[in-house]
């Protein structure tokens, strides 16, 4: 016993020291970002040694700095300091001083300023007689090496003049100084990305990002492990447990990894959204800088599409597809695991730039010619890493795509024929087929972009004959199928949920399948409607306009089929049913607002306004996200063996549904009035009212997701226990235990007819008998 307790103590010490290291790492991380934000003290002590009045609100402005310098050229710089609170001495003596440093180049006094400024210790400063003013002109001669970036530091001191006539010791009281910093790249540094990127100091950025990520993640993992089994909490158990998750190839465990990952990034993406909604709440706001705004909405878009929506779909696909088709696992388990890890590591690259304040600012569409431009006026340095991350995402989706398509094509159990396959499986199959065939265009597009940014190709550089519109074609050839890739699985979920909740088979199963496949085919020939204003061939514009409108037909078929399913069934209102019904409302509205864009004339007005934002958020939040929420409530019992709390679920649904409409509905109005998207602020005061309302709704919607988070965590331990089939579902995933064993089936099951199932369990709805001709038993 004594030995046992000693062991326990040792383990405690180990874990506590581990946590200690993690906290230290967390605390140290902010120091590792590559841009120091404080005043450079080394310069400060030499430059402002006799002016230690203290840092303050003094403004330092330097005019005449070029965007990039040419070697050997002289530039005239006007340095002005101002501080309305410090007037300066009466006799206009002793008003201020400055100290200017540059990492290269030489200084000299400006014309008429030879007696007023002096070169000192590699920089330049005012002379004794030069401190009677607050504005100086100096000349900076650029160095010959154009391949570098020169950093400037200016300390400016606003002096109140109380040193005149007093003893020097009092001289600094009431003076306030501050610092201005700038960087000017050489002309050659603009040409090649390699040189410019040094600015971000890759090693420091990498260490910061990796430390931060690992520390935060380890903390979370240790906590989850502790919660799982508080008694078996020791280091050996922890490493074994971690190893299990890091090496797992089981479809259910990989699905769980996908789910946790996507949920985490759903919350992160939501935080970005709330931050820039605060910025947009009122006109002329300056809560975020332009650069922050640009990088935040870029990461919001990319996070939500690639790191939240698609992984969440992959999570359910991983969990449910093998169960629904009666397979023991996916076709290629190791490839499947690799798909997840590629995704997980790509997020590090996507977020790489944020740690250095140089986050990608190229929007999720990454339009050339901005995204391939380098230098001061180009996209920020983190963009290169971001593009690399997108390439990795492409690899990840290709790997998971081949897996799902192969699984559905080759591993269906007896009875699960193509025309009896559950609609969720059909939707995942069509979505993955679309993703799989369109993704190469994105990969090639981003590889071109990546090479433009790194090794000096000129695919998108119009200055040498490159073609920025090529990017738009390659991106949207992927991008439009992509929006169906994220919406089709939601269709599948809603089909499953509605038919189970209505206690009948889905209405018009065959037409549902053909509609899915039809969308799958049409999705490839509509991409041009994103580019109607890009100046492409008018004939092509017409074709794309017509094909886009065609998409409404299969989508309409699906909506009417869902309505007919409700009509013929006896509906049970569970939380997942509510989400599916909410989906029907909001998705239909989103679909209708979408029909404005293919009309080239209308699109010219609506292009890049908030009307577009309203449309695609109605489709992506009201469609995809609502569908995924429905799936969470529907399949959580299957994965965990306990139901989610229905009361919390109802609360979550009501708040989110109202707040979602409150957030995105007013955007239609703003868009029609012409409010442009992707601008960090606006000056039209009449837009403030609606925008404030949107911001409030967005915050409510964001915080409402904490209810779901709490519900998921709480129900894991305390939820109501449930058996194989808590909702009365028909497909094969409900024939195995909750949670299912590994491998998921010991004996391959045989799927029965869905109508027979529902007739047996409920006695069958009137329409079920009428349309299918099945007699109740």
């Amino acid at each position, binding site marked *: 016993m004594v030995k046992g307790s000693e062991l326990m103590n040792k383990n405690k010490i180990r874990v506590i020291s581990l946590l200690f290291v993690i906290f230290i790492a967390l605390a140290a991380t902010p120091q590792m970002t590559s841009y120091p934000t404080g005043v450079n003290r080394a310069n400060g002590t030499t430059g402002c040694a006799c002016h230690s009045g203290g840092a303050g609100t003094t403004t330092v402005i330097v005019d005449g700095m070029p965007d990039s310098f040419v070697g050997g050229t002289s530039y005239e710089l006007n340095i002005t300091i101002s501080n309305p609170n410090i007037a300066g001495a009466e006799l206009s003596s002793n008003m201020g001083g400055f100290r200017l440093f540059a990492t290269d180049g030489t200084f000299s006094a400006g014309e008429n300023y030879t007696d007023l400024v002096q070169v000192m210790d590699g920089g330049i400063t005012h002379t004794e007689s030069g401190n009677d003013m607050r504005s100086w002109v100096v000349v900076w001669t650029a160095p010959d090496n154009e391949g570098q970036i020169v950093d400037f530091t200016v300390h400016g001191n606003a002096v109140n003049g109380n040193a005149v006539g007093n003893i020097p010791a009092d001289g600094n009281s009431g003076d306030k100084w501050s610092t201005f910093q700038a960087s000017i790249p050489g002309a050659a540094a603009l040409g090649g990305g390699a040189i410019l990127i040094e600015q971000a100091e890759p090693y420091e950025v990498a260490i910061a990002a990796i430390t931060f990520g690992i520390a935060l993640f380890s903390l979370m993992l240790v906590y989850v492990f502790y919660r799982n089994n508080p008694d078996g909490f020791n280091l050996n158990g922890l490493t074994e447990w971690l190893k299990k998750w890091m090496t797992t190839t089981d479809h259910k465990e990989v699905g769980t990894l996908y789910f946790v990952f996507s949920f985490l990034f759903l919350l992160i993406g939501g935080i970005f959204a709330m931050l820039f909604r605060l910025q947009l709440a009122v006109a002329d706001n300056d809560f975020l800088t332009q650069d922050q705004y640009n990088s935040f909405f870029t990461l919001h878009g990319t996070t939500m599409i690639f790191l939240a929506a698609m992984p969440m779909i992959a999570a359910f696909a991983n969990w449910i597809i093998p169960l629904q088709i009666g397979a023991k696992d996916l076709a290629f388990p190791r490839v499947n695991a690799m798909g997840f890890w590629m995704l997980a590591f790509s997020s590090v690259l996507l977020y790489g730039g944020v740690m250095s304040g140089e986050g990608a600012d190229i929007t999720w569409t990454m339009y050339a010619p901005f995204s391939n431009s380098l230098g001061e006026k180009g996209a920020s340095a983190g963009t290169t890493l971001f*593009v690399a991350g997108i390439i990795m995402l492409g690899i990840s989706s290709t790997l998971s795509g081949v897996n799902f398509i192969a699984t559905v094509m080759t591993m269906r159990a007896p009875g699960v024929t193509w025309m009896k396959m559950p609609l969720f499986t059909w939707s995942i199959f069509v979505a993955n087929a679309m993703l799989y065939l369109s993704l190469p265009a994105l990969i090639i597009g981003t590889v071109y972009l990546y090479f433009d940014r790194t090794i000096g190709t000129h695919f998108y550089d119009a200055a040498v004959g490159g073609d920025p519109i090529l990017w738009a074609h390659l991106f949207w050839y992927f991008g439009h199928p992509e929006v169906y890739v994220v919406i089709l699985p939601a269709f599948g979920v809603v089909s499953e949920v509605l038919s189970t909740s209505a206690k009948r088979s889905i209405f018009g199963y065959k037409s549902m399948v053909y509609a899915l496949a039809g969308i799958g085919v049409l999705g490839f020939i509509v991409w041009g409607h994103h580019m109607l204003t890009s100046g492409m*061939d008018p004939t092509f514009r017409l074709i794309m306009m017509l094909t886009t409108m065609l998409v409404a037909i299969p989508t309409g078929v699906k909506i009417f089929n869902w309505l007919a399913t409700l009509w013929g069934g006896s509906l049970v209102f569970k939380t997942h049913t509510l989400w599916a019904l909410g989906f029907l409302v909001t998705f239909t509205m989103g679909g209708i607002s979408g029909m404005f864009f293919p009309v080239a004339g209308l699109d010219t007005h609506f292009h890049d306004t908030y009307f577009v934002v309203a449309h695609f958020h109605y489709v992506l939040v009201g469609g995809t996200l609502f569908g995924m929420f429905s799936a969470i409530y529907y399949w959580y019992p299957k994965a965990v063996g306990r139901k989610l709390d229905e009361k919390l679920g109802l609360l979550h649904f009501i708040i989110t549904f109202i707040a979602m409409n409150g957030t995105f509905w007013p955007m239609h109005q703003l868009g029609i009035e012409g409010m442009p998207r992707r601008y960090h602020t606006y000056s039209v005061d009449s837009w403030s009212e609606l925008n404030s309302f949107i911001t409030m709704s967005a915050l409510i919607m964001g915080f409402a997701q904490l209810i779901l988070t709490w519900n998921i965590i709480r129900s894991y331990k305390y939820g109501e226990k449930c058996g194989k089939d808590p909702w009365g579902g028909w497909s094969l995933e409900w024939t195995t235990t909750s949670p299912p064993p590994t491998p998921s089936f010991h004996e391959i099951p045989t799927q029965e007819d869905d109508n027979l199932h529902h007739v047996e369990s409920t006695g069958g709805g009137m329409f079920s008998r009428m349309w299918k001709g099945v007699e109740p038993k």
Partner: protein
Amino acid sequence: MSYGDHDDHGHHGSWAPIIASLGTMIFLYGFSEASMGITAIGLVVLIWGLFTWWKGDLPFDGSEKMGELKSYGTPFGGMNIRKAGIWLFLMSEVMIFGSFFGAYMRMRTNWNTHWTLLDKAQEAIDSSLAAPGATAKSIYKECLSEKHTPMITQCEEATGGLVNQTFWHTESSTPVYQHVAAEYITADFMTLLPGAINTFALILSSFTVVLALKAAKNVDLDPKVRDKKVRNYLAMTLMLGTLFLILKLWEWNHLIHDYDFTISTLAGSFFYVTTGAHGVHVFVGLVFLTYFIYKAHIGGWDHNNAQSIEYYGLYWHFVDLAWVIIFPAFYLY
């Protein structure tokens, strides 16, 4: 229905996915930051992941021969699932090279600007600047040669000066039209030669892979003879593939140094990135082939598992086929 005993052992965890993914991330990070060191580390980690993957198949004691998963139902009923997987993978590869190709043809045919030229031609007709009887299409044909080279002087005449020098130039007055690789390559037999040899080398290597497969599947052969045959045919494939890469690098070197044809032009960007991507596919094939040869050397192949050579062969044939399309489009056209 049952898949046999193989699958009932439960799941074997594998470190390979996470290691290979980490390697990919480090590789891309290093490349982005132009740091050769980090890039190399990433590549090493990536290859470590790959070897971890292959190590799962070792030690060739027969445990991997217990049978592959078979497909069930339409459309691949009875086929090995891995074979369906490789065909699906090739579908993605077709789209990859399709994208390279589409982008290249767009550049070569002025597809992005041809309608503006037609527009200008119509304008010239409407304002009677063009010769009487000319149509927009006939003017268009006069403006571009068969190889889509702008005929600047003829075009200016045909449109009565409406489409002049400036139409063909971008803002910084760089000519829109740039010399493409084919012009240099076809100009000189010695430049064309490596490409021509490469074409035959790849086709021949596709044949030797099939011979290796045939030898591995031959149950009548003495195991020792069979192993030697398989190894030699695979080694022949490796040599031909290596020859391809060496000649390609020599040819790039020649184009860059003797003709000053670099990636900093638009045509050069397309040429080097597309042929380079194909070269990477060949290189990846060679990495796999090295492992296959090692496996043949220690007697790992027989008729039970020879289908792996077949799947590899499908990939290799595809790489070959892609070259058969790239060669005329980039070297001759």
